[in-house]
């Protein structure tokens, strides 16, 4: 069978000594930053991107992906043990996971979280293998108008579905697009928004922007926040869940995986949305909802499965269409581009080693997480005692070295410092930085496809409406906007009336 053959080929790529090593480093670093609060996968991947420059593309992608799902795993570990969500995806896990830990059942909670994640990861891997090839096949028919419409839909959906003000998210996408086209215009060679600074003529560095708005501005924000509460660490005794635990967790894991996979392919919805949806569902259908919030194992199993399935399925649109649906996927796309690989449906045919190797490595990485981290929990817990005042200067150091290693250019360091300030101010004003990055990544592509479409249509914009696929995508864009925007408008009217 084709599917098995492809997966088999992927495993062949992923188990090479080099790739296994990078996968291991990835999940290890991922777990580490997942455990440490105040530093997330976005900032870490942005900082480590320059180092992957000299690494072969397959290994680089495998490592970055490992950081991503490793971080979610680490985040749930601290959520359960110390009621501190290392990542936003594990906020929900705190509710019942920490209660289980307080009842002396930290071990089973961690084990169920690991098993749920692993199961969801396995299903996610299969889903990618199953759905990615036909999707890529379909996307091969796309011309410029279709790509423009697809990117428009992706950006609008991502902006609209992210938490927060829709207008603000859309504005950040627009600002991102604008930042993306800084530099010499590819068609005419005319420098745009360059202000006679030679370093800007190739455009703003992707990593410079990412490190600035994620790492630097995050630290500025953290230093201004009131100090984080620290709870006592509960001991871990006995990892094995009872037969009763396993029975109770089984169905929630299945449902959580389904929910996660569904939200995964939607742009803009972070893993927090998937895990929250799963938690609400479990609570709603439980025979005794009052158990939730008091250490119900379903409240750990469902959301943990959901956030991992979500994380895996986010790769589907990125790998097949070249469409990043989250901040991390935008970084992955940037990594691909830096390696000289044009993202899109051709990746699967031209670089099957990259595509299938990455997918197989995700399954291997999930396995590593289960095997490695349960025994290592003691070490992770001890890491939590590292105070933030020692942590953030180290983050700054690695961020600076990472940026400098790109072009040995002090200017890019200054630029990152500036984006740190700008990012902090924008976040303070209620803007999100992930939509900004999505827009930034897609900016040049979107303009290019718009221009090509207009040439194809001889200057008539109706070309977007006469081609069926493009029309469908545009209709979907309008529908998404309408569905999300209308209730908000109605609610506001209700407020005024009441």
């Amino acid at each position, binding site marked *: 069978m084709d599917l098995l053959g492809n997966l088999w080929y992927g495993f062949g790529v992923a188990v090479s000594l080099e790739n296994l090593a990078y996968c291991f480093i990835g999940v290890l670093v991922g777990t580490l930053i997942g455990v440490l609060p105040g530093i997330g996968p976005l900032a870490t991947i942005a900082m480590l991107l320059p180092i992957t420059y*000299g690494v072969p593309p397959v290994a680089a992608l495998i490592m970055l992906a490992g950081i991503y799902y490793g971080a979610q795993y680490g985040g749930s570990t601290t959520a359960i043990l110390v009621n501190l969500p290392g990542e936003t995806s594990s906020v929900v896990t705190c509710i019942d996971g920490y209660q289980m830990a307080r009842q002396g059942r930290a071990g089973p909670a961690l084990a169920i979280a690991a098993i749920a994640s692993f199961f969801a990861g396995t299903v996610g891997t299969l889903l990618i293998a199953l759905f990615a090839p036909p999707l890529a096949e379909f996307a091969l028919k796309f011309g410029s108008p279709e790509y423009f419409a697809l990117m428009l839909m992706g950006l609008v959906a991502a902006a609209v579905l992210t938490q927060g003000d829709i207008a603000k998210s859309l504005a950040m996408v627009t600002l991102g697009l604008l930042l993306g086209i800084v530099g010499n215009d590819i068609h005419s060679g005319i420098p*745009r928004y360059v202000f006679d600074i030679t370093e800007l003529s190739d455009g703003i560095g992707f990593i410079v922007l990412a490190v600035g708005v994620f790492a630097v501005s995050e630290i*500025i924000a953290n230093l201004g926040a009131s100090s984080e509460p620290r709870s006592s660490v509960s001991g871990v005794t006995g990892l094995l869940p009872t037969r009763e635990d396993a029975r109770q967790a089984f169905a929630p894991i299945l449902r959580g995986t389904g929910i996660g996979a569904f939200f995964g392919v939607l742009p803009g919805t972070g893993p927090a949305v998937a895990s929250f949806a799963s938690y609400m569902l479990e609570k709603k259908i439980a025979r005794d909802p009052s158990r939730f919030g008091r250490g119900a194992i379903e409240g750990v199993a469902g959301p943990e499965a959901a956030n991992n399935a979500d994380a895996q399925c986010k790769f589907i649109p990125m790998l097949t269409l070249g469409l990043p649906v989250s901040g991390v996927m935008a970084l992955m796309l940037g990594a691909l581009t830096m390696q000289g690989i044009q993202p899109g449906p051709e990746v699967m045919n031209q670089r099957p080693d990259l595509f299938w190797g990455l997918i197989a490595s995700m399954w291997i990485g999930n396995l590593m997480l289960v095997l490695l981290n349960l025994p290592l929990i003691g070490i992770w817990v001890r890491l939590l005692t590292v105070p933030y005042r020692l942590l953030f*200067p180290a983050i700054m150091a690695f961020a600076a070295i990472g940026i400098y290693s790109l072009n040995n250019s002090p200017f890019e*360091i200054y630029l990152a410092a500036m984006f740190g*300030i700008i990012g902090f101010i924008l976040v303070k004003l209620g803007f999100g930085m992930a939509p900004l990055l999505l827009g930034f990544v897609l900016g040049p592509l979107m303009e290019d496809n718009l221009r090509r479409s*207009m040439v194809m249509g001889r200057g008539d914009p109706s070309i977007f409406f006469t081609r069926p696929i493009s029309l469908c995508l545009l209709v979907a864009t309008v529908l998404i906007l309408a569905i999300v925007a209308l209730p908000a408008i109605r609610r506001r009217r209700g407020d005024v009336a009441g």
Partner: protein
Amino acid sequence: MRLEFLGNKDFWAGLVLTAVGVAAVLIARGYPLGTMIRMGPGYFPTLLGALLVLFGMYLLAKGLRSAERIEPGWSLRALIVLPLSLVLFGLLMDRAGLVPALAALVIGSAAAGREFKLVEVVLLALLLVAFSVAVFVWALGLPYPVLVWR
């Protein structure tokens, strides 16, 4: 109503966007617009700038009505010192090499925090410098001057 707008989140958000949008459109006037068939380099940026102005006006109006406040809790010290220590890193990297640049960055950014314990910070700087030289210069072979005087 006096000075109410000072902490008004959406008002400022709208103002910033409008300003950026107007600037983008004005600057883009220097680039050829082209025709509908062959869009010039000025077309897309003008479109985006106009969109930003629209979003900005909407948020301005929203801010004047809802008057949501900017959340308190931010550190002016961090906002100034942290970026400055990055700038210091950039300046020293070219002139003095990795060791002084990194030490300045670590000590500088530590000074942006609330607590500053000198001994601890110096130890941290030493550790990070040693680690970086070992990993980035020796192991990964990045072409950085370790210590120079120019």
